[in-house]
């Protein structure tokens, strides 16, 4: 691949205590693209995506071998706060804070030092426009974020992530808790966002991976139940002429 690469994993191996969750993952995430991570339940998709912003640090007894580079910097050698500013995350279940819509989006900028009210207002508007939520909420910025619908809440969480101007947005099954219409909106939004950001998305929905992603990583557990990267490549190729037999079996729905 000749594209610019924003994130690289190099022999990345993750342990939870004595259990090996990911085994020797090496792949490159190209910039301004959508990379989908697919695979059956328990294959380590979520563990992998949560590695890019070191969310696995929260798990007691987690341990890694190998490394991950973001902009050619080892993520374990830099401050985790700086890393998470650069690599934002959207979760499976929409998790807006029980605060107003405004305060949700302003949360990141505030903790990173922006105090000026008009500056914050500008950031909030821009982030909500970028997440295609502005028109729906512009008159209700003081309303509780929890009064929004599930799909709106998820777009609010995307806006919240955008507000700190990350380079990468990690999305861990962002639409799995949403109805088809809301899912479609999130997918359209991802298409739009990839012009400015790099997106990594975990999905168990094969059609979704095929629809939205440019690259696909296929993970599968080995005999020790550790997740291995079976195949990584352009989505068009993975879905039409996969190299590995197991990939073909999986995408054609023979298991998983």
């Amino acid at each position, binding site marked *: 691949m000749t594209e610019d690469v924003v994130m690289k994993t190099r022999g990345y191996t993750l342990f939870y205590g004595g259990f090996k969750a990911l085994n020797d993952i090496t792949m490159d995430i190209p910039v301004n693209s959508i990379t989908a991570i697919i695979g059956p339940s328990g294959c380590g998709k979520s563990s992998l995506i949560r590695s890019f912003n070191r969310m696995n640090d929260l798990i007691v007894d987690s341990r890694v071998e190998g490394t991950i580079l973001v902009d050619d910097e080892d993520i374990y050698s830099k401050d985790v*706060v700086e890393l*998470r500013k650069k690599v934002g995350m959207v979760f499976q279940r929409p998790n*807006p804070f029980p605060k107003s819509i405004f305060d949700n989006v302003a949360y990141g900028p505030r903790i990173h030092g922006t105090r000026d009210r008009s500056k914050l207002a500008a950031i909030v508007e821009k982030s909500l426009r970028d997440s295609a939520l502005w028109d729906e909420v512009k008159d209700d910025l003081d309303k*509780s974020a*929890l009064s929004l*619908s599930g799909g709106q809440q998820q777009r609010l969480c995307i806006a919240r992530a955008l507000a700190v101007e990350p380079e990468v947005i990690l999305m861990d099954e962002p639409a799995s808790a949403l109805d088809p219409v809301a899912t479609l909106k999130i997918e359209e939004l991802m298409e739009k966002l990839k012009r400015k950001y790099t997106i990594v998305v975990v999905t168990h929905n094969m059609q979704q991976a095929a629809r939205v992603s440019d690259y696909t990583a296929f993970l599968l557990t080995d005999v020790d139940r550790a997740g291995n990267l079976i195949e990584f490549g352009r989505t068009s190729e993975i879905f039409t002429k996969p190299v590995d037999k197991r990939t073909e079996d999986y995408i054609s729905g023979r298991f998983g």
Partner: protein
Amino acid sequence: MQRRKRQFDTAMKYSLLFAALASMLIVLMIGVFTFREALPAFRHIGLEKLLTEPVWRPGQEQYGILAMIAGSGLVTLGSVILGVPLALGCAIFLSEIARPRVRAVVKPCIELLAGIPSVVYGLFGMVVIVPIVRQIEVPGNTGFGLLSASIVLAIMILPTITSVSDHAIRSVPKEYREGSLAMGATKWETVSRVVIPSARSGIISAVVLGLGRALGETIAMIMVIGNSVIIPAAASSNPLTIFLSRARTLTGNIAVEINYATGLHQSALFATGVILFLLIMIVNSSARYLMSRGGMRKSG
């Protein structure tokens, strides 16, 4: 067989309903009987005089409980000022910072505090707190008074506020913490800006439960507060010395005098009880109001 089961269901339903009604009835009866005994006092002294008259001298037919209202109010305020930060600190430590093994030791210790009889707190106050407070050099300071009582009371409400707040903080969804940390917030930013505000209504109810306990505490207060029927006042130009003043609580007033009181005096003590009852009801309902208004509720 089916019919038998259905009959059993119905029987259970009514016996449980009876249990619920019985507890309601008891509350009602306590209210009614206390009020009935207090009625002569309300009739002959009058509510206004009772509440505003600063002198309580039953021998001379002077029945003002203002001093006791001030005493209860100030000692409760003192205990909240001292106890709430401590209890919240404990709760945050237990729920957010302590590793499971530390928590397994500290939490039972704090809960044990709730099981100590209040007379033992009173003894502790008399032999430990009072002598320390006596060291403060202010004219007339004996150690017995509002400050000692506030300290003892702060310790007494600690377990209630700590356990309820700890529970509230631990009920905050993990997703909120993750959302905040993923934004690059530190642990402390996450706790102070997301976790605590999300647990706000639970923390408010914790504080109010503590308030209720503080207002109702009797024997430990009698033992350390000095029991003088005076409206507490500062002993010097420093207004804080008001807390070195002796005082008497509403509860203490009843407990100290009820054994020998007769006639109107006895009725006035029941009236003190009615007012205590009302105060606690006001505290509880204002808390309920705050809670309903405070937290942003989930509605969709």
